[in-house]
């Protein structure tokens, strides 16, 4: 309502303040939880390029297809040959496709956080009701969910296929559940590592390369060392070496507790003591990356 306010101005002075009708917001305040949820869902959509340009959909969708097609082929083979077991165990699938998962993390972790840092939009987020912990949790949860979708979808394909070809409901369900636990751990671990590295490098290219270096190269190096230890008959060293790369960490956890066979050269399963250590290291890394992210965003751009 534009109402002229009579202002006490000195005579002859034409300056005055007009009320041009700005009104305060008196609708519902959705608050912190809603803002966090929005940030989570937008980041999750962004991780698959939804709501972004067609170009940025290509890579995540391509990697998603690459993840699912072998699973579909396996199901087809199992049905055609009337096998009593799927050709690849649920727990083994993610380890087999580790290069694709690593590429996905490397491509999407920097896109989740690096651009906010580079274009200095982080302070804008914090001008909303959310706080550091909300931002970190939303980004962490969205990337972990995105990786979980990527890794669990092929398992679901295999499970449905196995049920349709009547491979034994109880047995398949148990193995499928074990596979899901393993990929859930993998998603959290990879998301944590990817985000910590990406949050340090505002430049996308370097973030991608650094994530790849940590995920794939460490796996390559560890596998090489394990192969040599196997050839030299130092088989007891193999599980210890496996502690030094994310992929073999997950492999160790699931071969100790989730009924998988270790994928390392010589197929040495860690003992239960080593298995506990594996779990502790995985959980420690997840908690550690969360802590590092919190520290990183405590002062960023503010």
């Amino acid at each position, binding site marked *: 309502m534009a109402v002229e306010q009579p202002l006490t101005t000195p005579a002859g002075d034409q300056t005055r303040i007009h009320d041009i009708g700005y009104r305060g917001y008196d609708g519902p305040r959705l608050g912190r939880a809603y803002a966090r949820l929005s940030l989570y869902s937008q980041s999750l959509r962004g991780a698959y390029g939804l709501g*972004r*340009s067609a*170009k*940025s959909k290509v*890579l995540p969708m391509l990697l998603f297809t690459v993840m699912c097609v072998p699973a579909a082929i396996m199901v087809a083979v199992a049905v055609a040959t009337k096998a009593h077991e799927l050709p690849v165990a649920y727990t083994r699938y993610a380890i087999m496709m580790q*290069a694709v998962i690593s*590429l996905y993390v*490397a*491509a999407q972790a920097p896109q989740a956080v690096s*651009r906010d840092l*580079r*274009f200095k939009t982080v302070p804008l987020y914090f001008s909303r009701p959310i706080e550091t912990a909300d931002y970190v949790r939303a980004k962490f949860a969205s990337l972990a969910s995105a990786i979980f979708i990527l890794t669990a979808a092929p398992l679901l394909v295999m499970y449905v296929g196995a049920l349709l070809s009547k491979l034994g409901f109880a047995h398949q369900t148990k193995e499928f559940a074990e596979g899901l636990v393993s990929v859930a751990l993998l998603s959290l671990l990879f998301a944590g590592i990817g985000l910590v590295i990406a949050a*340090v*490098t505002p*430049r*996308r*290219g*370097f973030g*991608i*390369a*650094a994530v*790849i*270096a940590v995920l*794939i*190269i*460490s796996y*390559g*190096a560890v596998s*090489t*060392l394990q192969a*040599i*230890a196997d*050839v*030299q008959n*130092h088989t007891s060293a193999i599980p210890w070496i496996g502690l030094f790369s994310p992929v073999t960490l997950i492999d160790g956890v699931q071969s100790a507790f989730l009924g998988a066979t270790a994928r390392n050269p010589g197929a040495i399963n860690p003992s239960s003591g080593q298995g506990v250590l594996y779990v502790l290291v995985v959980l420690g890394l997840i908690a550690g990356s969360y802590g590092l992210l919190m520290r990183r965003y405590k002062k960023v751009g503010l």
Partner: protein
Amino acid sequence: MYDPTVARLTYRALLGRRRALILGALPLLLIVLSVAVRALTGADDQTAADVLGGFAIATMVPIIGVIAGTGAIGPEIDDGSVVYLLSKPLKRPAIIFTKLIVAIAVTMVFSAVPTLIAGLILNGNGQQIAVAYTVAALVSSIAYSALFLLLGTVSRHAVVFGLVYALVWEALFGSLVPGARTLSVQQWSLAVAHKIAGGDLVTSQVSLTTATVLLVVVTVLATWYAGQKLRTLKLAGEE
């Protein structure tokens, strides 16, 4: 063709601040790995060839090539600061050529030198293995830099596509589809290494002549086309 100022800027973009650490981490890992292997197995020619071929040439050189090749131009195009460079009275192919030289130099320093050191640690250059793989690293540095520099001018997702080529095409398809090995920088450089090492420890899928011709053709073509791309570069907004 070579412009010292552009070169200096590119060196700074590649090695400035903490970026040299990323580039330095891989060679360090290779050397740590070879010390560990030497301690575990002692000097063994076959093991040395496995480590150098499997880790240094197959993984480390392409990744350093990707970082240096795309890093030489990608970030500048990405954040738009390349306009300041392009608005200077310099021929665009000259800019590409200079950046290529810098990328090659960085890749060589960070890949060939550690390969040589690792080879010396592993078996003290027995049967010329260290030298052979070092030459392979040098040769592939040139081709990788040219290829990935081109990728950097073509796509905003150059690093990802470069890594897909280096890791998926060369490692995965190369081991499944024999034909893919003929079209692989790694195999071309191994052909050169094979010539030097003699014996059967270093093997390649392609003959030396094919390898040399393909290496030269790819490098020259990629550089020329990158120059053309830069001449007609459109600066699009962020996605």
